[in-house]
């Protein structure tokens, strides 16, 4: 296929693990009639979910891939393979090889074949770096967790690793930790062989715009009466049309909800970006500061003028560590004087924890009084009063000591009989806490490679 097409399509079927399972259907249908190369990505891997997957793999060596894998693959694999759409996804999480086997098994079960599933491995650096090496590295981005037990350390692989899997003939590529944009730039490298930094930068921008699913096409945008978005119940996920020349247009399937215009694309372009002139990826350092967006037609926005320069000599590695326990507990108060009853309940628990010797910070929120904006205890102590008849006390505590963390839940629960009048609706959450930090490692010390999983001919 390489070398003969001027245009390729890349659709997105998921922007996080937990995105709508039925979102990919209209994307596959819309791309099916296109004669050139076409790809579908599922981006489902966050830093904390990768660490959780590592722990699962330690417990069960055939697991450790995304718990969402079946939900995205099962309903879509037959239609995608039939249409000649290649799938690139990080559903491999901590175990891309096991994920490839699982995908092969799902595909066989629904009558697909022959097809080739390729796993990309090598992002897990603990085979080559000891815990002592990791602790000795310089920790960046302000979080230093070198004193805590290391659970996982995964390098962000770039698009080269994805392209290598496609060059091996993959119909479906399972990766673990790559940059999200590599899921998109990898197929572009495979089809168009780009090396020019400006072209690479436009591929990264394309990936950045697709990687959060419908966040570019109208979701996570609506603000009723100010920014209205039609039919979010059926929001259309994005499809990029990428030309060999570097031109990129973002669109979405016809007859889907959402909206795709300069406003929605601008919000997503800057999402999680710091200095727009120095957006660092393993593939290229991008300058997004001059990017132009143009509405070509309804629900079609062209993206141009990304610039690139060089690529970093080091790769970023996310290190996940055991960070003790997190507990959260809530109780609601309604009716007259509810705000003051809720704050009294919180003060009672704080006093009880203090008397029990708890010295760690306790988050004290009143939901309904600015809690989502992070306006906590200090605001309530300052005597701010809130009118209303529905407030919910929320307390949270992190501790390396399980018993101390549990104590918070116990004290909030006991408000049922020992707290102010009318408390109800107690809920709690108690779980181990994973913290993450980042280190840099030399690029040449990370060696991705691919493993092939061939599925013989089926009936479809």
């Amino acid at each position, binding site marked *: 296929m390489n070398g003969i097409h001027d245009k390729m399509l890349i659709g997105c079927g998921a922007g996080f693990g937990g995105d709508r399972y039925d979102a990919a259907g209209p994307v596959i249908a819309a791309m099916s009639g296109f004669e050139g190369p076409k790809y579908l990505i599922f981006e489902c891997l966050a830093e904390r979910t990768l660490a959780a997957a590592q722990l699962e793999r330690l417990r069960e060596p055939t697991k450790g891939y995304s718990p969402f894998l079946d939900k995205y693959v099962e309903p879509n694999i037959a239609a995608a393979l039939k249409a000649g759409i290649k799938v690139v996804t990080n559903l491999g999480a901590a175990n891309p090889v096991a994920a490839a086997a699982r995908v092969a098994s799902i595909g066989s079960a629904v009558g697909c074949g022959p097809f080739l599933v390729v796993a990309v491995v090598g992002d897990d650096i603990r085979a080559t770096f000891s815990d002592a090496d990791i602790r000795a590295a310089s920790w960046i981005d302000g979080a230093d967790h070198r004193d805590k037990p290391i659970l996982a350390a995964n390098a962000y692989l770039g698009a080269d690793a994805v392209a290598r899997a496609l060059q091996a003939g993959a119909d479906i590529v399972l990766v673990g930790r790559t940059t999200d944009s590599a899921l998109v730039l990898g197929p572009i490298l495979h089809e168009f062989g780009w090396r020019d930094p400006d072209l690479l930068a436009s591929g990264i921008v394309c990936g950045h715009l697709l990687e959060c699913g419908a966040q570019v096409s109208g979701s996570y945008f609506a603000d009723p009466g*100010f920014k209205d978005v039609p039919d979010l119940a059926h929001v259309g996920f994005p499809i990029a049309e990428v030309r060999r020349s570097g031109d990129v247009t973002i669109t979405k399937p016809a007859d889907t909800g959402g909206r795709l215009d300069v406003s929605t694309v601008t919000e997503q372009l800057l999402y*999680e970006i710091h200095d727009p002139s120095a957006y660092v990826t393993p593939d290229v350092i991008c300058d997004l500061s001059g990017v132009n967006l143009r509405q070509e037609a309804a629900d079609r926005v062209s993206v141009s003028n990304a610039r690139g320069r060089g690529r970093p000599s080091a790769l970023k590695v996310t290190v996940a560590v055991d960070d003790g326990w997190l507990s959260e507990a809530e109780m609601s108060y309604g009716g007259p004087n509810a705000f003051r009853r809720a704050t009294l309940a919180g003060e009672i628990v704080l006093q009880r924890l203090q008397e029990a010797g708890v010295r760690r910070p306790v988050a004290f929120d009143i939901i309904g009084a600015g809690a989502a904006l992070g306006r906590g205890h200090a605001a309530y102590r300052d005597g701010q009063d809130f009118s209303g008849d529905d407030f919910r006390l929320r307390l*949270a505590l992190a501790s390396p000591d399980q018993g101390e963390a549990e104590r918070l839940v116990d004290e909030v629960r006991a408000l049922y009989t020992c707290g102010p009048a009318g408390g109800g609706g107690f809920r709690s959450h108690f779980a181990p806490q994973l913290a*993450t930090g980042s280190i840099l490692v030399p690029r040449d010390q990370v060696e991705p490679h691919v493993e092939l999983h061939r599925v013989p001919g089926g009936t479809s």
Partner: protein
Amino acid sequence: MSPQTRIVTLHAIAHGRAGDKGNVCNVSVIAYQPDGWPIIDKQVTAERVRGVFEPYGVSRVERYALPQLRALNFVIRDGLGGGVNSSLALDRHGKAMSFLLLGALEVEIASDLVHLLAGREAGDASFP
């Protein structure tokens, strides 16, 4: 405030989105209309944004301008309680930080720029 101007919240003339990376939050502020751009470019300074986020322990705020997109990008450091994996906050990602900023800052606009006001604000019959 002169009689020819009006004070509105930033939310009335701009939109935005918050993102998180570790303990760093970024918030975009995008003018709805072309002539809203000079207003936000002039009035929404790094210093004012820092004032909004001061209670959150923010160490530094950086401001980047993308005039062709009518957009500002603010990088707000150390204000997310350690970040999504460590924070004790209800909203551990700080997803609501964009609306915190849009609601907390006020801007002064000329009265004849009523067309800048988005949606419901524009329909406000009390406009002088």
